């Protein structure tokens, strides 16, 4: 097999030097309509350079794709480039020397100056070297509200979390569900994070999620958060959907007052041809603390022992972050671009709100960057249990504290 590979590589080099085209296999889990459209922007741009994009899409989110990606890298037969959430996920692969160092590309492209917020690049950096290309920003701190639902209930559309909670009884009287919530741990965890920011504030959030301060996690601010979570659970008790987009659909159709979900939800409103400010309202930071996290996606490039491919990998890395590709990709995906120096005037109201907050520096580190996936999963499990049962606020907080205590 080794010989076979060598022969194949040899022919690849020959044909490459003839046409100077390299075929790169790229793995990702973007398979929905909007996502696929966004990926094709990448592929088109890459193919336009005379190279070939070999698409390796795997649906089912990171949970399905990740074992496949890691196995391939571990098995010594990696793809040329792969999507991974940036943050701590790839640290071990970098330490094992399995991922390509992109520092020279980053320096040549001046990434340090153009990537905004800088935290994105920090997440790609280990020991001063850069190992990934951030391609977009997703934030999770949004409350999406249905104008139709509030019209039915005869209440004004709330402008912040407090008003939203206060309006719940009227919505229920009108036979509506105040809060749409998909019954999956990660969605409930997003709600938890957002409510924490709105109720306990940014400082408390940072103390716990970044510095792992047990005192704060066990203290009165977080006690209030869990009480508010009980309130939110009551508001969502008649919401029995699972998928996040089914929950969004309840907001779109006016069956539910609102949903706490990331900025990707607006893709659903767009597909349903709803207009921000007319049919729906988006409140970043739940309308309380206008601050967004900067999660998102990044591409990593496994080490492949072939100078030709390595050169092409670096070329692709530079391409993914180039201005034209960033605009085209992010408009298609509904996410925010990773560079602050490009024109996004084509973006809609909600995206503009997000861009403004970023420009003003309202940036949180994403949970992906501060807590390990292990801790995240434990919290998600706790949230799934909390939201589906009748766990008291005190118990929820106590369980949460013990998870934070064990976190690394």
């Amino acid at each position: 097999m080794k010989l076979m590979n060598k022969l194949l590589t040899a022919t690849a080099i020959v044909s490459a030097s003839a046409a100077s085209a390299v075929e790169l296999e790229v793995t990702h889990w973007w398979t929905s309509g909007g996502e696929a459209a966004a990926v094709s922007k990448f592929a088109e741009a890459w193919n336009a350079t005379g190279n070939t994009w070999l698409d390796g899409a795997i649906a089912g989110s990171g949970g399905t794709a990740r074992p496949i990606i890691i196995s391939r890298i571990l098995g010594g037969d990696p793809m040329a480039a792969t999507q991974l959430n940036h943050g701590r996920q790839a640290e071990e692969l970098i330490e094992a020397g399995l991922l390509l160092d992109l520092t020279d590309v980053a320096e040549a492209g001046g990434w340090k100056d153009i990537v905004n917020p800088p935290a994105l690049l920090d997440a790609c950096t280990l020991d001063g070297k850069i190992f990934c290309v951030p391609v977009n920003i997703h934030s999770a701190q949004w409350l999406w509200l249905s104008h139709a639902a509030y019209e039915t209930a005869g209440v004004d559309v709330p402008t912040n979390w407090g008003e939203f909670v206060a309006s719940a009884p009227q919505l229920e009287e009108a036979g509506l569900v105040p809060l749409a919530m998909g019954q999956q741990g990660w969605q409930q965890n997003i709600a938890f994070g957002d409510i924490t920011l709105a109720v306990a504030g940014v400082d408390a959030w940072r103390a716990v999620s970044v510095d792992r301060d047990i005192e704060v996690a066990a203290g009165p601010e977080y006690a209030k958060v869990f009480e508010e979570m009980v309130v939110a659970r009551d508001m969502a008790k008649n919401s029995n959907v699972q998928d996040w987009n089914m929950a969004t659909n309840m907001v779109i159709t006016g069956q539910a007052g609102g949903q706490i979900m990331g900025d990707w939800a607006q893709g659903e409103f767009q597909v349903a041809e709803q207009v921000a400010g007319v049919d729906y309202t988006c409140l970043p930071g739940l309308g309380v603390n206008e601050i967004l996290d900067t999660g998102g996606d990044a591409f990593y490039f496994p080490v492949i022992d072939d100078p030709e491919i390595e050169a092409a990998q670096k070329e692709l890395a530079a391409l993914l972050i180039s201005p034209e590709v960033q605009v085209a990709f992010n408009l298609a995906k509904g996410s925010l671009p990773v560079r602050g120096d490009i024109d996004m005037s084509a973006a809609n109201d909600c995206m503009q709100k997000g861009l403004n907050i970023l420009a003003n520096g309202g940036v949180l580190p994403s949970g992906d960057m501060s807590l390990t996936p292990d801790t995240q999963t434990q919290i998600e499990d706790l949230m799934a249990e909390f939201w589906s049962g009748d766990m008291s606020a005190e118990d929820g907080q106590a369980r949460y504290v013990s998870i934070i205590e064990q976190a690394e």
Partner: protein
Amino acid sequence: MTATSEQIGTPIAAKRPSRWLRNPMAKIASIPMILTALVVFVGGTTWTVVYSFTDSKLLPRENFVGFDQYERLWSTARWMVSIKNLALYGVCSLVLTLTIGFILAALLDRKVRFEGAFRTIFLYPFALSFVVTGLAWQWILNPDFGLQNLVREWGWTSFTFDPLNNPDIVMFGLLIAGIWQGSGLIMCIMLAGLRGIDEDIWKAARVDGIGTIKTYVVIIIPMMRPVFITSLVLIASGIIKLYDLVVAQTNGGPGISSEVPAKYVINYMFQAQNLAQGFAASTMMLLSVVIILIPWAYLEFGGRKRG
């Protein structure tokens, strides 16, 4: 697929000296099996057990931490829920699949017309993957446009049947689908077993005036012990591995009410990137399999000396 009861017991292996150089061909031909058993199954599980004592995260690494992973495992609410669910599902699935499989086989054995058609109807779900099974039943059990909706449209407006949305009964929603998929094969095995029973036994029972149902319970079922053991092994190995169906049908929800051990293992290995925790959980699963199987193997193998 089978059974094991008899596994070892056949008298065939009569007197053949098992000296090393006798029958070299048989040994050579068994090399793939020996390699699979030793390298893949023993080697792979040993590897898993060893790394369950480390703190491996994304990649396996040899930093040993004793029983930490096991302590954490047994203090995790989700793991406890998973075990309870598997026990509930396991017992119900065993009893119901055996019962349904046997009753269907007995009915088909009563010289019915269109036996072939019925048999195909009961067996075809086995050709479909659990992913497909989960999806189809997720749909039928969806309260808004599935069964519940249908019955309500018929006029019984207070009718409630939403197992997939109700944490208390969600495991039964999974059971309905699991039994649908697997009972046909058991029916086939039972049918084959019934066909192997001598007609004279029926005649004798009739002469003695024993009723049909009583004949089945008192005479036929005890005679079919090996068939039941075959079925038991088949069903049990499927229950332990229960994963795809849960992912496709409920994804462990609502909340964590339909989590199962295999899903815990896989989530912690790949999503939480805590390999060692996943390994610890799979070691516990393996341990329970071994605890159940070894005594059986000992009875079957140890009791009778070869050759």
